[in-house]
Each structure stands twice: as C-alpha cells, then as structure tokens.
C-alpha cells in the first residue's frame, strides 16, 4: 500500500467529457501524466489543462476545501478534487466524472441550482417571532456552550452538494429536499434562538421531506466536512414526531436575555486600551 500511495509515477486519468454545443451524450477521454507526491486531483486537472487539454472545463475556487465548488465523482465516490490526493487513491487509473444527480452543464461542471433552491426552501435563518423585540431590541441573546453544541456540527456545511450526489432518493426524486437542506432545517430548529418550527413545518413536513430519507447513510460518508447530514435528518424526524404529539421542545421567546445596559457595561469593561499613536 505504501508504495502505491506515495511513489511518484505516471497515472492514467479517465475524464468524462461533455460539450453541450456538439455532444448529445458524454464520452470518456484518457490522459496520461506524471503525478508527484501530495498532488491533488485539482492540481492534476490544472496541469492537464495547461499541458494537454486546454478545453477541459470544471469549477473550482479556493483549492482548500472551504468554498465547495470542486465536487466531482472521483473513483466512484463524490469527493472534493482539492482535498483528494491522486496517489492516496491508490489506483493507476483515476476516473473523474461530474457529480451524479445534477444536470451536467459541461465536462465536469454540475448545475448546483437545485441544491441552492432546496436550501432556500427550508428557511435557513433564525426565525424570531417577537416583532417588537426585533424592531427595538431590549437585550442580547445568550447561548450556553451546550445549546450551541446541539447544532454546531451542522453549521459546517459548505454547500458542495456531494451528499445529493450520494443519495439514493435524489437519484429518482427531483423534488426530494435532500440531505443538505434537511440537515440545515435541523440546524435551525435545534437552535435555541429559533422559534420557527411552525413556519418551517410547512416547508419540510411534506412527502418529499425527511421521511423519504431511509438512512442509507451514503450522504454522511460523502460529506467532506464531517457534517453528517444523515444524522441531522434522523434528529429532525424525532423533533417533528415529538412536535406532532405535543412534546416538542418548548422555546420561550427571549429565554435568556442580557439587558442592553449590561451589554454596554460589558463592552466598556473589555474595551481595548487607549491608542498610543
């Protein structure tokens, strides 16, 4: 294994190509190039484009696993090209295809619009129903570390869409909200500052909602940030069931508020030292 994973050598890249202007269906092209230790799939694609195939298209930006642009189907698994080292794959042939379950715009570019639309559909923001407090706030919300930990994991989502490429339900059902949006729905309902369960239920308690997740777990395996969307969906199911029988988490408006006067005092207390220049 060790000789396979760090010996620089020639690797064959099987890349799926598709040009909407000329092709009606995608086809595979093969390229051979030298790969050095530590080289990521994204770097290999850049080298390929520079040296062999100038027309090759893909989408990428930050090249450090933060922006979520370069999701690809690498060696039969959805992965971020920038986080996957070619030699760590351990194969002499590396196949690269666009993410499944999305429209393929060109070469390795998927159309992520449905992901963003579904994310928006679940109202991914804190819903606070006390309009008077919103208009003229009297204090500041407090959140204990425990309250934060209940949903913190799910805030790490970078919207790369790998989970939808892995999900068997998304494979047939274009209306299914999908692991990304449903995990985010849990992230907001589990937030102690959010009072939007009632509002959010209209968007998520539908046929194409959490119950079309059958816990195959592929999304959690694919997630490059350890968000574990399948976990979020199961917790969302529990929250919805408890809510439907009247045992939902009771959230009082402004449960913990630090009065504004105290906030001002705290700011003064922790004010930076006066400027010296």
């Amino acid at each position, binding site marked *: 294994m060790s000789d396979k994973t760090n010996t620089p050598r020639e690797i064959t890249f099987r890349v799926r190509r598709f040009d909407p202007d000329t092709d009606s269906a995608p086809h595979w092209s093969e390229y051979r190039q030298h790969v050095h230790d530590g080289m990521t799939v994204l770097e290999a694609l850049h080298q390929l484009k520079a040296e062999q195939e100038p027309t090759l298209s893909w989408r990428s930006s930050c090249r450090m696993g933060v922006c979520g642009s370069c999701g690809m189907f690498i060696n039969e698994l959805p992965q971020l090209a920038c986080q996957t080292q070619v030699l760590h794959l351990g194969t002499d042939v590396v196949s690269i295809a666009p993410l499944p379950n999305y429209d393929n715009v060109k070469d390795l570019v998927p159309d992520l619009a449905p992901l963003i639309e579904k994310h928006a559909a679940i109202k991914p923001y804190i819903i606070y129903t006390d309009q008077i407090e919103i208009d003229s706030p009297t204090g500041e919300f407090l959140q204990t570390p425990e309250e934060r930990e209940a949903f913190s994991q799910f805030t790490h989502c970078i919207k790369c869409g790998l989970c939808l490429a892995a999900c068997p339900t998304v494979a047939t059902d274009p209306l299914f909200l999908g692991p990304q949006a449903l995990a985010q729905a849990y992230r907001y309902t589990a937030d102690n500052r959010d009072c939007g369960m009632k509002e959010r239920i209209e968007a998520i308690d539908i046929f194409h909602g959490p119950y079309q997740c059958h816990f195959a777990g592929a999304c959690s395996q694919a997630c490059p940030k350890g968000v574990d969307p399948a976990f979020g969906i199961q917790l969302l199911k529990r929250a919805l069931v408890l809510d*439907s029988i009247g045992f939902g988490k009771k959230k009082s408006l402004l449960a913990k508020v630090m009065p504004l006067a105290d906030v001002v005092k705290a700011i003064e207390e922790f004010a930076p030292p006066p400027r010296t220049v």
Partner: protein
Amino acid sequence: MRETRLWSVHLLVIPIIVVLLGAHFAVMHYAPVFYGVSIEEARNFETMIERGRSVAQLVLYILLLAAALYHGLYGLRGILRELTLTPGLGKIVDTSIILLGLFIFALGAYVTWWTFSFKIGG
C-alpha cells in the same frame, strides 16, 4: 395531512404486526414445533374453520390485516412516489394505493367473517 402523522402511524403499527404475524407464523408454519401437529393438519380445511370460529381470531386477524396493509402500502406508496413523477401522477398513485388497500381489506375482512360464521355440515 402532515407527513409526520402518516409516517408515525406506519411505525406505531409495527408492534401489532410483529406480535400477530409471529403468532400467525407459529400456527401456520411452525405447528410441528409449537403445537405438535403436522403442517398438513394445521392447514386442513376443518382445522382452519375450527380456528376461525373464535372471536379472538376474528378480531386479531382483522387487526393484523389492517396494520400490515397500512404499513406495507405506506411503504409501496413511498417507493412509487419517489420515482420521477408529475404532481398529477403522484395523486393518481395516492388514490390507487388507497383504493387497493380498501379493496384488499374488504376482501380479507369478508373472508375472515365468512370463516367465523361458517356452519360445519351446512
């Protein structure tokens, strides 16, 4: 109706199915193990009618029928509606599943009642 309710009911009927289907298996398929009679005897016409004449059997079988049909058809509906369908086709699936469920329930319940009220020897 909220999907949560439909889904919760499909979980709630599970204990009914497990207990009653277990009993059904014991009587019909494991009679030699549990009752010391051969499977042929257990499935004999007269034995069957005899068993069917108890009120407990009548009630429990109709209960099992309803529970298992709900659980199974809820699952079938889920699978069918996961296919890429237009909203119209989705409604057709829902309606057909309800009609199929009602028909099978009516047939099963009628047969159970027929067995219960059967008079041996005419």
